[in-house]
């Protein structure tokens, strides 16, 4: 019986499929940047296997309002290749660490024409089945105030002040109660001193001992 079981386990493990499993790619969702600044677009992936030597990253750019895509960066076989003809010529640099599953790129000197969607596609052979992930880049002249930041700040400050006032109120009440307590003790001490002075003028009565029964 045990032998059959062991055989079955071995067989099952043997015929367990060893296919290429899915790879999950992660980038940000949206990035905001100022004109003229640099931005680092991060791309990482998750794969059940170790990072192979044939790992590859590809970055594809699609401008806002256009359907055409163009590749701007590619890493394969241990070499990084960047755009040397298009609009990102000499502006994009591969700064990721593929051995650590990081395929990030750095884009320098942003302009309004760089608004668009950047797609990262990573492959870790034999895990090649994956959905490329996209990050949207928005380039601003000055960064706008996000909705709700000031609202939250005002509400937080006012409620925080309220909590602080309540805490201080109860603390003061507690401290004043203590002070009242210590005041009465010092009064007691003064009374005692006066009492002892009085006693020095007054001879104590003789002690009488009663024998124990």
């Amino acid at each position, binding site marked *: 019986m045990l032998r059959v079981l062991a055989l079955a386990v071995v067989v099952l493990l043997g015929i367990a499929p060893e296919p290429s499993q899915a790879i999950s790619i992660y980038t940000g969702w949206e990035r905001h940047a100022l004109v003229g600044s640099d931005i680092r677009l991060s791309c990482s992936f998750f794969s059940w296997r170790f990072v192979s030597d044939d790992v590859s990253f590809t970055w594809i750019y699609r401008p806002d309002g256009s359907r055409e895509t163009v590749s701007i960066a590619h890493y394969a076989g241990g070499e990084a290749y960047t755009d040397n003809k298009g609009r990102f010529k000499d502006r994009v640099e591969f700064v990721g660490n593929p051995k650590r599953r990081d395929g990030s790129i750095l884009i320098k000197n942003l302009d309004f024409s760089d608004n668009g969607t950047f797609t990262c596609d990573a492959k870790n052979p034999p895990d090649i089945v994956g959905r490329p992930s996209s990050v949207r880049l928005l380039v601003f002249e000055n960064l706008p105030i*996000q909705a709700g930041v000031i609202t*939250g700040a005002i509400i937080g400050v006012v*409620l925080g002040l309220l909590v602080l006032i309540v805490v201080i109120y109860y603390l003061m009440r507690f401290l004043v109660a203590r002070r009242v307590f210590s005041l009465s003790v010092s009064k007691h001490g003064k009374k005692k001193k006066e009492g002892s002075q009085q006693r020095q003028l007054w001879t104590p009565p003789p002690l009488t001992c009663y024998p124990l029964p």
Partner: protein
Amino acid sequence: MLLILLGVLVFHLVVLILLIVSTASSTWTVDATGHTDLWYNCHSDPNGYKCLQASSEDWIQAVQALMILSVVFCFTSLIAFLYQLFRLVKGGHFYFTSIFQILASVFVMCGAIIYTVMRPDSDKDYGYAYVLAWVAFPLSLISGLCYLILRKKD
């Protein structure tokens, strides 16, 4: 006595409802095609009815914060009133309740004033939420002062 108590409580609830409606309803400014502020700008085009988020300028966010704070303080004052009703010593004043209610009225006033001054479209009409905010301000002030003079008996 019970009648006065009930009346004050109902008045407080009315003020709270006015504040909630004024804060949540996005109808501070209306025009022929839609309404806008504090949270959404909704307009009807020939294409359909579209709603966008209200502009995230700093003064609108300040008005949002003040209206939310006024609702929070009004609600807290209601809870404080119910608490002090059962726990206050005889002859005591509802100070906590009154302070919170007056603070709520101050916040509504500030919010309404900021909105009135900073509104860009001076040709559009004011919506009902704006009117409710201005109505809620004196009502909540009166409610707060009521609690100041109210005293707990038996």
